[in-house]
């Protein structure tokens, strides 16, 4: 068998053409096998080298190997091209209607008041306030007397307060929690008390139940200025750095001095809550030495803050269990 240069060139060209013609990976594999495989034409030539004169073997072998390498290179290039084409074809085939809706997991919602309560509580948590709770049905002592609300004070009227048969009331504010938290303990105190409260009131803007948050500090030196500082920091946390507060003198039986405070809103003021230095009589009612200890307390509604955060225009919209409203928030 001859291994003439001409024959090798012919074979190489033939192999390259066959490989280039392969239109599928399968055809490519067959063509490769035909020329490069163990039983392929190039292998056959290689096997024939042994029959050559010893001095010609090296040169013939080298030529043969170079030709085989070139054919392999062409084959692998062809293979890459075919694979690319196949992958493009299959990409083109897999098209779904991406505009169909996603399979959303069910989405629940927390109540707006829950959200605002958490946000408020988180702020005070950061300042080291603990949380206290009290019952919603309260004794008149805790809800009124201990807070120096006199027996004939109008707020103790059945027009304002829900009374329970046989005594006790639905708490009208969160302040009784102050009494519970302080009685029998020794300052320093740093507490908040969020919760549900009740008043005999039902109108376009008032609900007979609503939510308040109460906060207070009692120690040996906390001042009215400290109260302003805490409420300012709180307001900025909730409403941003530009909010302003206004403290107006007011009267509460359980604080002295007392104030109501407003926050700036649309060029005016909106009433926010009440605050003041805890009246020494209240401290004494809890068994705390009012000559040694002093402190402030504040309370505010949470409902309006919740409404403001969510843009809900009327309190009844969120206290009626209307899912069309509640699924928009939280």
């Amino acid at each position: 068998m001859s291994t003439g240069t001409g024959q090798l060139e012919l074979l190489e060209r033939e192999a390259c053409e066959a490989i280039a013609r392969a239109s599928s990976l399968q055809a490519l594999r067959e063509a490769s096998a035909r020329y490069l495989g163990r039983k392929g034409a190039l292998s056959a030539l290689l096997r024939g080298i042994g029959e050559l004169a010893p001095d010609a073997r090296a040169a013939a072998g080298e030529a043969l190997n170079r030709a085989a390498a070139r054919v392999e290179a062409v084959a692998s290039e062809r293979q890459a091209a075919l694979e690319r084409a196949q992958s493009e074809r299959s990409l083109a085939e897999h098209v779904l209607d991406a505009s169909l809706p996603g399979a959303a997991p069910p989405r629940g919602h927390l109540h707006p008041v829950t959200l605002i309560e958490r946000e408020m509580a988180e702020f005070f948590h950061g300042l080291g306030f603990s949380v206290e709770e009290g019952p919603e049905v309260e004794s008149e002592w805790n809800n009124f007397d201990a807070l120096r609300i006199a027996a004939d004070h109008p707020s103790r009227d059945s027009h304002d307060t829900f009374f329970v048969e046989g005594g006790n009331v639905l708490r009208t504010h969160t302040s009784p929690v102050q009494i519970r938290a302080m009685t029998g303990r020794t300052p320093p105190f740093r507490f908040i008390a969020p919760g549900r409260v009740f008043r005999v009131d039902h109108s376009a803007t008032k609900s007979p139940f609503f939510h308040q948050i109460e906060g207070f500090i009692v120690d040996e030196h906390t001042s009215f200025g400290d109260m302003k500082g805490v409420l300012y920091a709180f307001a900025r946390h909730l409403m941003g750095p530009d909010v302003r507060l206004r403290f107006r003198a007011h009267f509460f039986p359980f604080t002295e001095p007392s104030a109501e405070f407003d926050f700036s809103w649309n060029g005016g003021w909106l009433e926010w809550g009440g605050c003041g230095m805890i009246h020494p009589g209240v401290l004494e009612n809890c068994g705390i030495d009012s000559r040694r200890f002093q402190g402030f307390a504040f309370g505010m509604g949470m409902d309006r803050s919740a409404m403001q955060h969510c843009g809900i225009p009327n309190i009844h919209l969120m206290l009626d269990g209307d899912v069309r409203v509640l699924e928009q928030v939280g």
Partner: protein
Amino acid sequence: MRVPLGWLATWIDLPVRAELEERLTLAGLEIEEVLRTGPDLSAIRVGHVLERKQHPNADRLSVCSVDLGEAAPATIVCGASNVAAGQKVAVAVPGVTLPDGTKLKKSKIRGEVSEGMICSARELGLGDDPSGILVLDPGANIGAPLSEVLQAGETILDVEITPNRGDWVSMLGMAREVRALFGGTLRMPPSEPVEGTRAASEDVRIAIDDPDGCHLYVGRVVRGVQIGPSPAWLAARLEAAGMRAINVVVDVTNLVLLEYGQPLHAFDLASLRGAEVRVRRAHSGEKLATLDGETRDLAPDDLVIADAERAVAIAGVMGGAETEVRATTRDVLIESAQFAPTRVRRTSKRLGLRSEASYRFERGVDPDGVARAADRAARLLAELAGGTVSRGRVEVRGVAAPRSGEIVLDPSHPNRLLGTKLTTEEIVSLLARVGVQARLDVDNRLRCTVPSWRNDLSIAEDLIEEIARIHGYDAIEPTMPRAALAPVSRPASLALVERTRDQLKAAGLIEIRLMPTLQPADLDALRLPTDDALRRGVRLANPMPGMGPLLCTSLLPGLLRAARRNLSRQVDSVRIFEVGRTFLARGPGELPEEPLRAAALVTRGERASLWEPGSPIPAFFEAKGIAESLLAELGQRAVFQAGSSAPWLHPGASGELRSVDTVLCRLGELHPEVASAFEISAACALLEVDLQALLDRPGEPSRYREVSSYPAVRRDLAVLLASSQPAGEVLDAIRKTAGNMLVSAAIFDRYEGKGIPAGKVSIAFRLVFQRPDRTLLDAEVAKTTERVVDMLGQRFGGELR
């Protein structure tokens, strides 16, 4: 209280209104509303008559060129004879509505265009003078609104008075507050009457039989008055303050009440039998016809004014009809007194009768102003009704009301409480502004004398509030408290509530908050037996109309009603929950138990999404899944048991999750009777979790279990079982039989129908085997599976499909 500012300005010089309002508000006088009397002149503008020409077609008209502060002057035809060039006048331009309601239009008058109207005082609602146009002050700014130039009518501040400040409820009190805030001098109206020679003590005898109820009673007699209408200025003042003018005597007493805050009463002296006044308790069964035409039943606690025979007035509340001043009255007894606030409050409340007088007596009057008010009224009556004031007052005293006297104030106390750095001098001067005289004693304490009208000041903190108020709350620097670090705590119940809310939200439910009350009928609607614990409701003594009188013993009625409201609003699928307290009565007078509960309700709507399984998940299984995952989240190992004793649940579609012997959750479909009682037609399931019970059994924290690195082997077994066989029992049996190689077993399919014999159901179980220490051998999995299949056959008659 209504404060007419023009009137107040006669007492003290006022700052500009915005500043006045601002400072009063900050000082605790909340301004609820600013009212105006008189016409609104803000749309009328000041014009300058540049030129006046005779109207070409009418002798009596002139054509004026008027500068209104705009680019070109307006041409206005005017019929008044007094109009002249150089005048400042009031001009209404087209589009403006005059106080009498006419709306101006651009017009032609006798062929001349008129671009407005020069107004007369009458056209502006400023009086009856029709004689010509209103000529304004030459200094008025051209183009300015007329309301800035003319003081027409009154501006009235409607001020909310806090209940501690009885002294504020008068012009005098407001003037004092203005003085405290802005400085200035009070101008007190004259009060000394010109007296006749006859002594008042000859006209009337006064006695106090109840000295605790009446601290002080002063009588003044004016004889020979002429009853008639009050002069216009007096009527206007009363009207501005929100009162009606009646006759000169009554009006004078009301005027003095408004001036000093001291309520007065005028009796027709001739109708007082025995010419005698006694302040005493009412006799039992005593009645009195009051001025308002009602007959009042009096109680022995009521303080009355009586003559020799009968009650003639309810002290501090309202006078009687029989002794009231009438057209024929000639002689008048003026009563000025200080009654005990609590007595007035009790009587006024008991009778449901509130008056200007009771409002002020309840808050307390100035004991030092009682006589002055009587004097002032006597003087005015003599001036305005032509009477003669009898000589002297008839004054009787009961037990004096407690006075604050002297308060000792450590000068460092205000700074400590307020966080300020006020000097002692500043403190003294701030106190002086509210009439408190403070004197620094040798012990370096301030001895503070409280004025007679400040019955609200009794302890150092009261004075500190005054110091802060006058200094200005806004002038107190905000600071942050200094405190030692201390651990922060929160109640376990709150943590539990918050985790519950989060988990129920994660399950796709919406949180609601409702008034926790219900109707007794709601408990019947839940099918509760008469002795059920949930019947131990706490009853409200004064529920509002339409509100249930019981505090809720269960969250379910509220939840069911909310569901019905939502369904009626065409919400297709309702998924709601509430976390809150319920209320169970204990002994009488005791605070109730307030067990914490969480309850959720899901209804099954139609298939709502493309990706949902073809048939919707039954509501029951959704509720069960929510309950199980909630309890798992809370670290509770609860065992499900089919069936429940809860009467509101469907007996065939209910269950309980229990931990040992405690029921943690009851769930199921609604009993059809309950559904119909609450008018819920949609398929619906609910669950109620006893959070209170969970508080006593803290959940187990999640613990790591070793993850095997060896392959798991899965075996699916489809088993034919009797339809009546609860599959959960079978699953439990599989778990027990399969041994510890089994890492999970689950039901993944259930099929009945074509290809399955009647009365049978095919349940597919998926068993996963794995060992932590080695690869499983096929043979041992096969052996275990065989044991399971044998067991299924023997115990349940199950056969592999």
